[in-house]
């Protein structure tokens, strides 16, 4: 029967070409949406790697002030530390968790180069963000004078750069002048939130003379409220007249970040949902029309011994064969994404999206063909043959 269906569809390929293109286009759109969804879901499944609840970001901007900036920042550090509401404070570069800023660099070890996110932080960073160490230790004040800049790397960077080798104590290079020594390894650090891919990351010790990294992450005691925030801003404003001061909560920044990721996905989902609904309705209409035109054939098949079920299966089978033709074409296109490693996304994500898109397409066409097929099977053979 399958061979018969293939012949029937193949011999009518001209008539069915638009339908095949329609199903193919739906498959490609679904493949795109599902790749995006699978990518985000698989990212979401991986832990973020740090605790952001009760962490505030004090973002300072020196504006026109260029006098003894490093010393002023150190004074602020000491001042913030002294608040009883603050459990831990840490200074870091502007690419704070959930911010839009990003810093990356290429580093090399044993001729293997990796593009890594780079964060400049101090010795308290692991405490402030409750970053658990998988191996080694976090850097201390004394490490700042070391010949090679001490760094802590994340698990992904270890995997890409060292594979199964122990990274502790290894020297990696940024360029001929700058080298880093790995002193610790953490598991994950997904600074842009749960939807971010678990990319390689390294944490470099921030030196005392640094006068441009002016973000302070503060872990505050539970229950610390806006009164403290106001007091903090007021005190800092007195200490740093003319500077820009902004306090944000990482919890809120995370939510904003999620919105930035989810809104385009939702828009894409709505647009493709609308498109697929139109395709489904069109398919339903075409199938109804096709069945109305083929009443004679239905009557004939019933006369030749087809049961109601076999007539229904035949019409369902035809649309499955059509969908299969469309998806074979679609697969030729979709398969290029994992093969060519498009957008540097793991091939498993594309493969999952291809499988899911195929299943959904088959479900949609089955749903569209179900009612017309059932109707076809209920056509009275004598009536259908007589009409013809």
């Amino acid at each position, binding site marked *: *029967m399958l*061979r*018969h269906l293939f*012949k*029937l569809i193949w*011999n*009518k390929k001209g008539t069915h070409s638009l339908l095949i293109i329609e199903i193919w286009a739906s498959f490609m759109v679904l493949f795109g949406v599902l790749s995006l969804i699978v990518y985000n879901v698989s990212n979401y499944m991986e832990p973020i790697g740090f605790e952001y609840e009760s962490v505030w970001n004090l973002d300072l901007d020196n504006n026109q002030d260029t006098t003894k900036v490093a010393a002023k920042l150190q004074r602020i550090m000491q001042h913030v530390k002294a608040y009883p509401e603050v459990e831990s404070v840490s200074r870091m570069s502007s690419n704070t968790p959930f911010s839009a800023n990003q810093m990356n660099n290429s580093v090399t070890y044993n001729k293997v180069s990796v593009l890594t996110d780079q964060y400049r932080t101090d010795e308290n960073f692991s405490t402030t963000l409750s970053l658990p160490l998988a191996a080694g230790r976090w850097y201390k004040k004394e490490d700042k004078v070391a010949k090679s800049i001490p760094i802590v790397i994340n698990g992904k960077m270890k995997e890409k750069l060292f594979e199964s080798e122990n990274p502790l104590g290894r020297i990696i290079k940024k360029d001929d002048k700058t080298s880093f020594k790995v002193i610790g390894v953490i598991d994950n650090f997904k600074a842009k939130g749960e939807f971010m891919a678990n990319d390689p990351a390294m944490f470099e010790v921030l030196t005392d003379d640094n006068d441009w990294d002016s973000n302070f992450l503060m872990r505050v005691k539970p229950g610390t409220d806006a009164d403290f925030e106001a007091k903090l801003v007021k005190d800092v404003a007195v200490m740093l007249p003319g500077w820009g001061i902004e306090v944000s909560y990482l919890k809120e920044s995370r939510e904003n970040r999620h919105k930035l990721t989810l809104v385009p996905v939702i828009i894409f989902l709505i647009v493709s949902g609308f498109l697929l609904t139109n395709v489904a309705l069109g398919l339903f209409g075409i199938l109804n029309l096709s069945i109305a035109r083929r009443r*004679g*054939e239905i*009557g*004939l*098949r*019933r*006369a*030749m*011994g*087809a*049961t*109601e*079920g*076999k007539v229904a299966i035949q019409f369902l089978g035809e649309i499955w064969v059509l969908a299969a033709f469309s998806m074979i074409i679609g697969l030729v296109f979709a398969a290029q994404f994992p093969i060519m490693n498009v957008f540097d996304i793991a091939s498993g994500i594309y493969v999952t999206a291809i499988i899911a898109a195929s299943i959904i397409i088959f479900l949609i066409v089955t749903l569209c063909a179900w009612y017309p097929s059932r109707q076809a099977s209920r056509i*009275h*053979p*004598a009536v259908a*043959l*007589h009409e*013809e």
Partner: protein
Amino acid sequence: MIKLQNVEKVYRTSSIETLALNNINLDVKKGEFISIMGPSGCGKSTLLNIMGLLDEPSKGIIEIDGSRVEKYSEKNLAHLRNQKLGFIFQSFHLINDLSVIDNVEIPLLYRSSTAKERRELAQEALEKVGLSNRMKHFPKQLSGGQKQRVAIARAIVGKPEIILADEPTGNLDSAMGNEILNILQSLNEGGATIVMVTHDDAMAKRTHRLVRLFDGTQVL
């Protein structure tokens, strides 16, 4: 082979009741070639549909090969049609998107036969009707007579015991009609039981027995 006892068929709509067949009693013996005649609208095709299990009588008993079929399920009726009956229609009912040989294979699709068996049987049937050289052609490339010969090949491909022909020469000129009747006669000589609806007296005279209908009633 086919026995009809007191068969009645009434078509009902919300306001009209039409008696299409009234008290039909007919016994078609194995190996017979029967023609059914009558004016248009007298119930010839309805009778053929009932004999072919494509329609149910409103009353009466139908026996095929000694078995009463009124309690048969839809599946069993389909099986019986597939195994015992072959149909030939005035308008051929060929599927234009399938080649001649694929059209002929259709009844075998509803049996558990392999592709190879289907092909062999279809070739054999087409040889019988003299169309083995047109197997790969499509219906649109054939003349009316050739189309009807394809329809006959399709009717006999499953080697049914009964062939039901509804005005098989109705759309053909007399020469072509004669040719088709010759094929039917040779099939009958080969053992097939044939019931044919026709308008043509000359065709009817060439059959063993004539059943005449008028306004749904058997008059001969």
